[in-house]
């Protein structure tokens, strides 16, 4: 009895940041409705309090996270290892930025629920990284998905949003089922749901039947590919990005990628019968699967983005393309001087800064009544909103991968990882990555050109929405600073993938 309580206590200490977040979520859900009058009216400005509370919760979680050093992987239901530490850092800090985006985008009467959903998503992302057990991992994945459905519809309620939400909901359920099915194969092969147990069981000769292992791998990759918007599981992304609010599009462009890639980094080595990604090299079939996925994702994302007129569809395809770049890092394994997994984790942070920066700035310069929709609306932004246009240009050039931005370093690391892997596959992927970066330059540059090289046509007054704008400013500055000082992040990433 005492032992059980002790274990429970120990497990709880490992997830203190998440407990703080989820407790805040409960408070928000329970108190929120009482502040709304029966007619649906509420005092204006309540959203500031809920936003502040969300930031405070994230700050507390962040403090707890920062003061607990990663500990090596253990046998319990949770593990607070270096990978979890890194993923938590990402989701908590970027969660703060997303709170800023959501701040003024949601009505006062729904602010509590919306911010609570966002916090739940952040907590779910953390738990994905912390989970040391298939069941825990699946629950964490669902803890990300279910609040997402609510959040997508809560913030903006139009026909298009409804369609987008339903589409996301159905496909998300489908992908969850795939992941669950893949997990059941792993359980069937090993008889345990604990990740360490699975790795040990599969490493015993004869236990890990190759076929079972491959089926599990394929199903897990397919299920998680939905989250990272890898082709051919990307179909929802353009419609959803177009339909939902800017803050939600920003969230969808980043958080599911963290979830997906962290889960892949956790699970893929298992199918190769090793526990960590250190020195993990995908076997032939896994490598073929990931490489094909990466190539398809890069090309479809970039080529389709070339044809878009709608700003958010374009950003959706751009987000798909970046998933392809990161898959390159995953496909080449973690063997060279610059490990592929390390490069992916580094890229995640850089990508988060630049993509959330773009969305935050688009939100910051587009008024609540009239958000940006098509590329043409950006015309002449450098005349009407010169500072926003400048920051946006920096973020877009970072997405292109030009120096002096973090995007350049991210791509450089992926190049080094892919080429350093020394096989034809790795080198081919590096070449295709370069080709895709060149294609991508075309549409990012078009956005910059529209902002700077064309006169303003839309003379309607667009006041700056300062909270999101500050988030965008922070992202842009961080993008530049990360270029100048990348060593600390690289150290963290190496520890996380080692």
């Amino acid at each position: 009895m005492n032992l059980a309580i002790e274990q429970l206590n120990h497990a709880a200490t490992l997830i203190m940041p998440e407990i703080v977040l989820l407790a805040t979520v409960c408070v928000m859900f329970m108190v929120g409705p009482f502040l709304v009058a029966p007619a649906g009216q509420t005092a204006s400005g309540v959203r500031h309090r809920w936003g502040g509370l969300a930031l405070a919760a994230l700050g507390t979680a962040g403090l707890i996270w920062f003061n607990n050093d990663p500990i090596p992987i253990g046998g319990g239901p949770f593990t607070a290892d270096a990978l979890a530490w890194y993923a938590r850092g990402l989701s908590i800090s970027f969660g703060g930025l997303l709170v800023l985006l959501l701040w003024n985008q949601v009505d006062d009467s729904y602010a509590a629920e919306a911010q609570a959903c966002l916090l739940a998503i952040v907590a779910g992302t953390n738990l994905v990284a912390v989970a040391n057990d298939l069941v825990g991992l699946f629950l964490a994945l669902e803890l990300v998905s279910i609040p997402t459905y609510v959040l997508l519809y809560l913030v903006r309620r139009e026909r298009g949003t409804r369609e987008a939400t339903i589409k996301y909901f159905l496909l998300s359920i489908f992908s969850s089922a795939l992941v669950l099915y893949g997990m059941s194969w792993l359980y069937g092969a090993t008889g345990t749901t604990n990740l360490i147990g699975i790795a040990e069981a599969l490493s015993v000769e004869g236990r890990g039947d190759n076929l079972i292992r491959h089926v599990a791998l394929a199903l897990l990759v397919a299920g998680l590919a939905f989250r990272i918007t890898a082709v051919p599981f990307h179909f929802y992304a353009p419609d959803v990005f177009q339909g939902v609010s800017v803050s939600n599009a920003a969230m969808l462009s980043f958080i599911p990628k963290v979830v997906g890639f962290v889960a892949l980094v956790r699970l893929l080595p298992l199918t190769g019968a090793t526990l960590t990604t250190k020195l993990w090299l995908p076997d032939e079939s896994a490598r073929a699967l990931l490489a094909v996925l990466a190539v398809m994702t890069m090309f479809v994302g970039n080529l389709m983005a070339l044809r878009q007129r709608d700003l958010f569809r374009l950003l959706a395809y751009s987000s798909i393309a970046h998933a392809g770049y990161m898959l390159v890092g995953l496909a080449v394994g973690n063997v060279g001087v610059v490990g592929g997994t390390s490069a992916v984790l580094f890229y995640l942070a850089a990508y988060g800064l630049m993509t959330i920066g773009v969305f935050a700035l688009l939100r910051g310069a587009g008024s609540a009544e009239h958000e940006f929709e098509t590329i043409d609306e950006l015309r002449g932004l450098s005349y009407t909103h010169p500072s926003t246009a400048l920051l946006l240009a920096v973020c877009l050039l970072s997405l292109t991968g030009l120096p002096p931005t973090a995007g350049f370093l991210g791509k450089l690391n992926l190049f080094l990882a892919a080429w350093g892997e020394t096989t034809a596959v790795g080198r081919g992927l590096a070449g295709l990555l370069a080709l895709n970066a060149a294609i991508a330059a075309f549409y990012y540059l078009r956005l910059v050109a529209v902002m700077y090289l064309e006169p303003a046509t839309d003379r309607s007054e667009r006041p700056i929405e300062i909270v999101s704008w500050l988030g965008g400013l922070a992202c842009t500055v961080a993008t530049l600073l990360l270029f100048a000082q990348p060593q600390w992040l690289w150290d963290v990433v190496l520890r996380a993938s080692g």
Partner: protein
Amino acid sequence: MIVLLLLTLAIPAAGAALLMIFRHSMTGHTPRWIALVASVVTLLMSIGLASEFRELPPPDHSAGVVSSGVGSFPIQPRFEQKYHWFTFPATGVSASDSKGFQFDFHFGLDGISMSLIVLTTVLTMSCVLVSWESIAEREAEFYTALLALETGLIGVFTAFDLMLFYVSFEFTLIPLFFMIGMWGGPQRRYAAVKFFLYTLAGSLITLVGLVALVLLVAGDGLATPCSLPDLAAWLAANPLSVPVQIALFLALSAGFLVKVPVFPFHTWLPLAHVEAPTAGSVLLAGVLLKLGTYGFLRLCLPMLPAACLQVGLPLLGSLAVVGIIYGSLCALAQRDIKRLVAYSSIAHLGFCMLGLFALNVVGITGGVLQMINHGLSTGGLFLIVGMIYERYHTRQLDELGGLAIKLPLIAMALVFVSLSSIGLPGLNGFVGEILSLAGMFERHPLYMVLGAIGLVLGAWYLLTMLQTLLFGPLVEPQQGEHGVSDMNVREALALAPIVVLCLWIGVRPQPLVDMIKPDVEAVAGLYPNDLPAGTAMAGQVPRLVSD
């Protein structure tokens, strides 16, 4: 010294930042004054840097070869300073499995980069002066772009580190994109986008080549594979196998071929030049194209000698010859002066490439001189074309003629700069072209003979232009146009440094040759001479003028 070097980098950057941040609070024409002050101070800094640089002892690379026998040092900055950027620590089971390596911000100076830095600062100041009145719209942004471009260019020339080099190399695209796209001619958007994407695509291939080179050398155990001096010394001591060298050479060249541009990768150039504002054209022709030749000189020549001999010489030699003749013929056919000058750039850079790929001291000296001379004379040509355009709003030879009567000073300057560009003995162009061709003659006489045709063609198209534009009956877009005045003081100040340098290098090239000589000799030392020792000028820099 490092203080001066960092100031040379920081002042234009600070000027650009200042302009960007306070663009709203500036009234009237404050931006151009700030830009002028920043560019003049940068120029003074670079001159100060050059004078300190001349005091430095020349590198003792010959000692390394003879005494220690470990190999030669093809790149030896006479001054260097490193700031750690980031490290990839060693990973792997055993220490030998994979070694870590690090990237630095590695600043340095040698004779070649020093002379190009001065060229950049001189031309930037002229650019500010020539844009003084022609840029009326969004002044602050324009000068921000100009100063940012200057920072990037100086960054390339001070970089003795692969990554810093590449980063600056890529960065220069961004301000020039805005300069062409925002203040250019009617087709500016198309020109800017084409310029950007074309060069970006080329340099991405270069990046793959760089990554491959770095990983290859790091795998062999060099801990600082990005430092150019270390890398060059390492590769001189442990040469790569020939096929690997050739593959790397082709990958690395991709970006530089586009940048130079070597025929047939030149199609972005005339368009970009014609559409760019005068300042953009001056810097594009004067310095940006040199980034391509400088890239060859810094990366390909010292690192991959076998590939340069086996592939570089025939490939680039023939392409350069084709470029010289093709560029000259195209220039001959143009009726738009700016386009004519743009095509002449292709021809002149052909000479530069011929000189560099002569792979001997004489040729490389000629190539480097040609880089500087072309920067001065073509920069000057673009400046004057800009002045004429400002007055008449046309650049068509059919609509202009006999301007010497009306604009005697401009006409005089144009004649002077054209003659320098043609290569009249006594002016700067002559020295570079003749040394390039002489070097090539020793390496491969056929390319030299074919290239020499370009000299004649060059005289032909430029003199034809002068004849139509300046002499004969007066032709103006609107007959008897009033209010067209001759060169004013500001424009004279913009041209003066260029004219002085043209004359100075033409009459006394020796100081410049002495400055770049040790570095050129270090690179050329990697290449054996085909001719027996003692004949001709092989292996030593000729004394052009007796002291």
